[in-house]
């Protein structure tokens, strides 16, 4: 199977969907000339022209509203917000309008919009360009929230998001664009709302999202050496959440670590942990542990930004603590 980058997988999804349906168009700052910040729409302006690839002025609120209006007319906008930090400028259109119109029209208006953005640390850009704000959207009825972690997933999920008639907030990770992985040549879709077991294991379940999946997989390799078998579950869609897959895994292992790059307080890790406790209370040998970013803005530079968020080492420690203590107790 061809091995391509996360960014290239996005580009393939764009091309396939824009060819399939001329109503699909990409709107955002420098998505055309530049092919977007991380080049995921490179050369598509030439291929699809300015009607399907639209460069936009620095007007996050206006272009988000433009997505709402054009979607109400049957178009299928993919709106790119360059950094999730700037989605703060578009929240009114996303939350008060895009998320509400289907219900406010008593089901008549459909808004097939993909609000596509990227978040997280890893590019040393400091606190105004490195946030993880996904949980803002999970709490808003009417929105679907997706966080892919691999080239295979981003392509299949993005295509499904484009074809879905609900507004979708699609959050990529800036550290993943250059990550490579296998992506089949033939077309495929990944249904929204389905988790993926990135690695099967029996001793402990690790629920991780986005970039954290990468670290969790590395940690799992290292832990295997120590005889600890981790099952890595990637929800991929934060809402609707595939509770079944997560619960089945935890019922099997009896131990769970939730890893997110966002701070714990008020973050999605709380949602995951609650759902698991609610469903697996009697199966859990210990309470679910959350491993999240420290409660701080992301400091500048290559060193600190890695220290304030979870990484392979901290995941290993946390997992061992969960497994280890249990063994000590000899249950």
């Amino acid at each position, binding site marked *: 199977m061809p091995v391509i980058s996360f960014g290239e997988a996005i580009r393939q999804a764009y091309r396939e969907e824009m060819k399939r349906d001329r109503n699909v168009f990409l709107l955002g700052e420098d998505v055309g000339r530049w092919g977007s910040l991380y080049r995921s729409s490179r050369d598509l302006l030439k291929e699809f022209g300015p009607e399907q690839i639209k460069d936009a002025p620095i007007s996050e609120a206006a272009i988000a509203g433009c997505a709402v209006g054009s979607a109400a007319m049957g*178009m299928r906008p993919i709106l790119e917000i360059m950094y999730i930090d700037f989605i703060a400028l578009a929240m009114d259109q996303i939350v008060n309008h895009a998320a509400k119109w289907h219900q406010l029209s008593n089901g008549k208006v459909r808004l097939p919009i993909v609000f596509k953005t990227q978040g997280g640390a890893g590019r040393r850009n400091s606190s105004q360009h490195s946030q993880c704000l996904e949980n803002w959207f999970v709490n808003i009825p009417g929105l679907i929230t997706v966080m892919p972690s691999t080239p295979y997933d981003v392509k299949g999920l993005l295509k499904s998001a484009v074809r879905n008639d609900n507004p979708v907030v699609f959050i990529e990770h800036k550290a993943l664009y250059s990550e490579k992985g296998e992506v089949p040549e033939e077309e495929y879709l990944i249904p929204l709302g389905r988790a993926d077991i990135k690695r099967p294991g029996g001793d402990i379940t690790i629920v991780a999202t986005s970039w954290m999946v990468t670290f969790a997989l590395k940690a799992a390799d290292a832990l295997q050496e120590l005889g600890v078998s981790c099952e890595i579950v990637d929800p991929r869609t934060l809402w609707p959440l595939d509770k079944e897959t997560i619960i089945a895994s935890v019922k099997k292992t009896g131990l769970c670590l939730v890893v997110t790059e966002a701070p714990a307080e008020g973050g999605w890790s709380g949602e995951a942990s609650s759902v698991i406790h609610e469903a697996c209370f009697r199966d859990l040998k210990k309470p679910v542990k959350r491993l999240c970013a420290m409660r701080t803005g992301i400091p500048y530079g290559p060193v600190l930004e890695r220290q304030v968020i979870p990484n392979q080492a901290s995941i290993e420690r946390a997992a061992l603590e969960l497994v280890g203590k249990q063994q000590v107790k000899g249950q």
Partner: protein
Amino acid sequence: MIAGDLLKLYGDMLLLRRFDQMCMQLKLKDLIYSGYHPYEGQEAVATGFCGALKKDDILLSTHRPHCHAVAKGCSPEAVLTEMMGRTSGCSGGLGGAMQFIDTANNFYCGSVVGSNMPIATGFGLAIKQQKLDRICMCIFGDGASNTGSFHEALNLAAIWKLPIVFVCENNQFAEAMPVREFVACERIAMRAGGYGLEEIRVDGNDVEETRRIAADLIRRTRQGEGPFLVEALTYRIGGHYVGDPEGTYRTREEVESWKEKEPLIRAREKLLNCEVGSNQLSDLDGAVKEKLTALRAWALEQPFPTLEQGISHVYIPLLAGENVCQ
């Protein structure tokens, strides 16, 4: 303009005036539940501009939408019962008096000030790219002209040359905030220059003027000359909402002086000068009132949505049978 046309416009305004008054009564009886924003005195804007649109054209309105909606062609039945929260309302009674959608008549409104303007750029873009013979009108208030949405939307519409007529309905107040104190420029229309657009202002209490300008701008927009920004100067005779503390922000005298300049009185005078009999006008009024009395009686009979109806369109299920509100 010949008397016949003016008489038609007068009749349209009269319907809005009586409709608004009826709504106010229902609000006082607590049969309209949310904030309700009276329209009295601004009828020449709704009739002149919204009334000039075709059914296919799109209208984006505000938190003060009921007369815009009726002028656009939404049925008074659907608008009234929406405000009363009944299933026969435009939005099935789920939206209320400040936010509802009537797709059949291409009418949309919402209660976040200024936020309809960015949305208008999307309708305009779709119309342009799909090469449809339609236009989009976006109506908003003087207060909305201070929002970032106003600026971003006008710039976007202008650089993309979108088929949109932006109508600033300057009723001289944003709640209790007088336009002269909160809008930095002398005339809101002056802001057009910042988007390379011409400055257009119209007497918003002269229905012949508003209709003439509206027809002209709509025609030019259909020809691809859009977007346009037009300011219609009028006056909000009622409070921002029924029973607001008016005394805190304006004098009775000021209101009285504007009552003399309100659009129905002005149209009526002209009509009388064109040999239209006053009895003819009172007959017209009688007919409108009769129609509305029947409407009111009917509306009160309409059912409220059930919980199931209320929550069944939050999102479109991904999988058949998926529960929408788990």
